[in-house]
């Protein structure tokens, strides 16, 4: 296997391949940064350009895009509260407040380093797991997916400490929205009121663009000024300290990377869940949970590490069985097919060198993109000094056009608008946005997995504890549900012993 690793690496070390990797990276950074574009659209548009290219060049190009896009997304998330791609919405939550405090440079620096480390950990995990990938994928069926989704919801609900009631309400609202559309289990179409567009439900990326970017632009317009509240405080030369922050909070990085790796491997969960789960877990174990959402650097490190870790592990089901876990993977599979690499159980056996070349290229792109992000952080931070009267209309335009560009469906613009207003109201009325995002992503899957599980088990609920992985997940779920109570017990005991002392 080591030979294959080295052969893969060696095949990249040619001018043409490296050139394509770099081009892919540039495209990935830009596509990642513009809301609504993202790696999926970029890859889809590159497909025809890869005709006639040798396979490794096409893989290098794709890897460049996939590896660099998250960094681009982080930059716009931090500077403009505009998630470049869905997972970056988690970075907005603490990244943008940091930019408002003039600490955009630190945030970008931390994001860049977390990106790289997360990417490396993800790659290492991928390489370790690849031999047993097929058995792993076979362990997860509908009951396991159902439990995982519920676990995700509970963890995120737990994270809105202090706002539990409103957090739950927000989460339920997200589930309501997620139930719109075609129900694959019964074949029913629900809550569409005859509108064709809603047949597939509310499209996620337009909704997120609205929820974060548009909502914030409305807010910014009302408060005249610039994003950075006080120009004198804008430290655009403290990126290095951002880098060091990541190393200082190494448990956060590690935790984020591991969550990203694990969640990324689950088809259908994807980057958003990985990022938000990582964020929520970090909040939960933190000693100062109230500081999150107001510019806690760990709130940037955690999701960023997860996002890049997931980029590697998301290849596991793709490479093992040809199952795309996300739209991005589906397009990538299309590129593989065009170049004679047929995804499926035989891919790893028949095309080892190319696949390892891909993995190396992905990691390389991730690290290089982070470096570029660092270099660009200083000039880009100046955006936070732009007066809102220039910035807001510009960002709004990019957001709405980008939202259309996701799949060239004009109704997306209305969705972005609606969620922009909703997001704005939520911030004004103090409802957390985190739970909505998770429910939007997991909502329809939960119902489908639940019904499928019961059909498989002939109606017996035992299926959720009979299989080894299900049992483990159920126990984890019980733990997560009990966590707030346990925490309260520990705190009150500490208080009591403190009072007695």
């Amino acid at each position, binding site marked *: 296997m080591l030979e294959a690793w080295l052969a893969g690496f060696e095949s990249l070390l040619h001018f043409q391949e490296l050139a394509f990797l770099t081009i892919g990276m540039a495209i990935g950074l830009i596509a990642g940064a513009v809301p609504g574009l993202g790696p999926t659209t970029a890859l889809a548009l590159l497909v025809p350009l890869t005709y006639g290219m040798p396979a490794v060049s096409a893989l290098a190009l794709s890897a460049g895009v996939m590896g660099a896009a998250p960094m681009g997304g982080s930059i716009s998330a931090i500077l403009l509260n505009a998630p470049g791609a869905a997972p970056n919405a988690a970075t907005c939550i603490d990244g943008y407040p940091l930019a408002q405090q003039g600490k955009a440079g630190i945030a970008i620096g931390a994001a860049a380093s977390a990106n790289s480390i997360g990417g490396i950990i993800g790659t290492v995990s991928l390489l370790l797991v690849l031999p047993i990938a097929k058995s792993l994928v*076979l362990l997860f069926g509908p009951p396991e997916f159902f439990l995982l989704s519920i676990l995700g919801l509970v963890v995120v609900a737990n994270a809105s400490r202090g706002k539990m009631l409103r957090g739950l309400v927000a989460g339920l609202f997200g589930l309501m929205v997620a139930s719109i559309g075609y129900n694959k289990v019964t074949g029913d179409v629900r809550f569409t009121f005859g509108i064709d567009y809603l047949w597939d439900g509310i499209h996620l990326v337009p909704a997120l663009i609205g929820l974060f970017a548009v909502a914030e632009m409305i807010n910014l317009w009302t408060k005249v000024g610039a994003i950075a509240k006080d120009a004198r405080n804008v430290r655009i030369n403290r990126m290095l300290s951002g880098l060091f922050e990541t190393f200082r909070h190494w448990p956060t990085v590690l935790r984020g990377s591991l969550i990203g790796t694990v969640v990324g491997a689950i088809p259908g969960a994807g980057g958003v869940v990985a990022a938000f789960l990582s964020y929520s877990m970090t909040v939960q174990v933190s000693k100062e949970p109230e500081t999150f959402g107001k510019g806690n650097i760990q709130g940037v490190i955690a999701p960023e590490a997860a996002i890049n870790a997931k980029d590697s592990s998301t290849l596991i089901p793709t490479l093992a069985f040809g199952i795309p876990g996300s739209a991005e993977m589906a397009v990538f599979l299309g590129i593989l097919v065009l170049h*004679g690499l047929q995804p499926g159980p035989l891919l790893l056996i028949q095309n080892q060198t190319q696949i390892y070349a891909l993995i190396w290229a992905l990691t390389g792109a991730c690290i290089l993109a982070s470096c570029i992000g660092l270099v660009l952080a200083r000039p880009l931070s100046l955006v936070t000094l732009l007066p809102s009267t220039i910035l807001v209309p510009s960002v709004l335009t990019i957001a709405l056009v980008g939202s259309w560009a996701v799949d*060239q469906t004009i109704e997306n613009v209305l969705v972005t608008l609606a969620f922009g207003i909703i997001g704005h109201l939520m911030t004004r009325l103090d409802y957390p946005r985190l739970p909505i995002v998770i429910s939007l992503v997991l909502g329809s899957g939960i119902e489908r997995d639940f019904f499928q599980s019961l059909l498989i088990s002939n109606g017996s609920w035992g299926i959720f504890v009979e299989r080894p992985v299900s049992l483990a997940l159920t126990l984890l779920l019980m733990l997560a549900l009990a966590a707030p109570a346990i925490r309260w017990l520990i705190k009150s005991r500490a208080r009591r012993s403190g009072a007695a002392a």
Partner: protein
Amino acid sequence: MGRQRALIGRRHFITSAAALGASSLLGSGVPVFAAGYPDRDISFIVPYPPGGAYDQYVRILLQPLSQALPSHVTVVPNNVAGAGGARAANVLYRSKPDGYTISVLNAMGLILLKLKGGTIGFDLNDLTWVGNLARDEYALVVAPNSKYKSVEDLQKASLTSPIKFSAPGPGTASYAAILIGTHLLDIRAQLITGFRGASDSMLAVTRGDVDATILTLPAVRQMTQGNFLRVVATFQEHSTIPGAEDATSLKVPELAEIIEIRPVAAPPHVAPEIVATLSTALTKAMKDPMVLAWAKTTGASLDPMTSEETTKIIRDQSSFMARWKALLPHG
């Protein structure tokens, strides 16, 4: 401006102005004859997002098709996903019949939709059928270590309790294939739907969550080659898989009528000359060595058809499926 989806690409105003002028005078109900067709980009609509099976078929054909067309115009893919393929059909239906918009359609899914009492807004037979990309036949698969070794085993076992089949959503061609196939084979089946696609469906069988599934041969190819699934029977007259039963050996010839096709259509009332150009180009493109090599690697069953053959097969399949209307759930 024309009433088509605005194509801001290469525009040769001199040559196409005449055509556009003529068509706007005549209205969209009359066939459009444009001298010098084609002289700009042709839009090839795909009913699913990029990366899926339909998308792959179209993308592999883009260059060969462009080469096969007179004046070698570019063919541009346009993914119009939504409503299970119905959105693409509608966009096509409403496009200008000038030969610059064509689409591959998931015909079986659309036929099904109509049978279930739904509507796609128009009659499929109104479209101008240009040709066909592929014709896939189905196979019944089980896990390699399954206790069911033959169709007979499944039939016997289903007498006590229904056999579990995995299927994607109730509106898909696979679903219909399973319903009709199990009915013809006298296997009492319980369909568990909602799987996210062919791969998900197959993994459920390998994992043991369900007992079997019915999918097209290209879809199951790698899984069977990698020994994750075993083909018990194919819905072919003569099975191409050694050791598997077929419609002849099972004495159920109608099984071979259950197929999946990927036809290409143009809007209603396209001029016959334009259809002929497209049809010839499509057939020629499908014989391109690169396409053939791709088909060999993926196991795709290319099946180019003429415009008349495609129109006929759409009608035949509509009547065939209509016979099983009672089996299909009503939406």
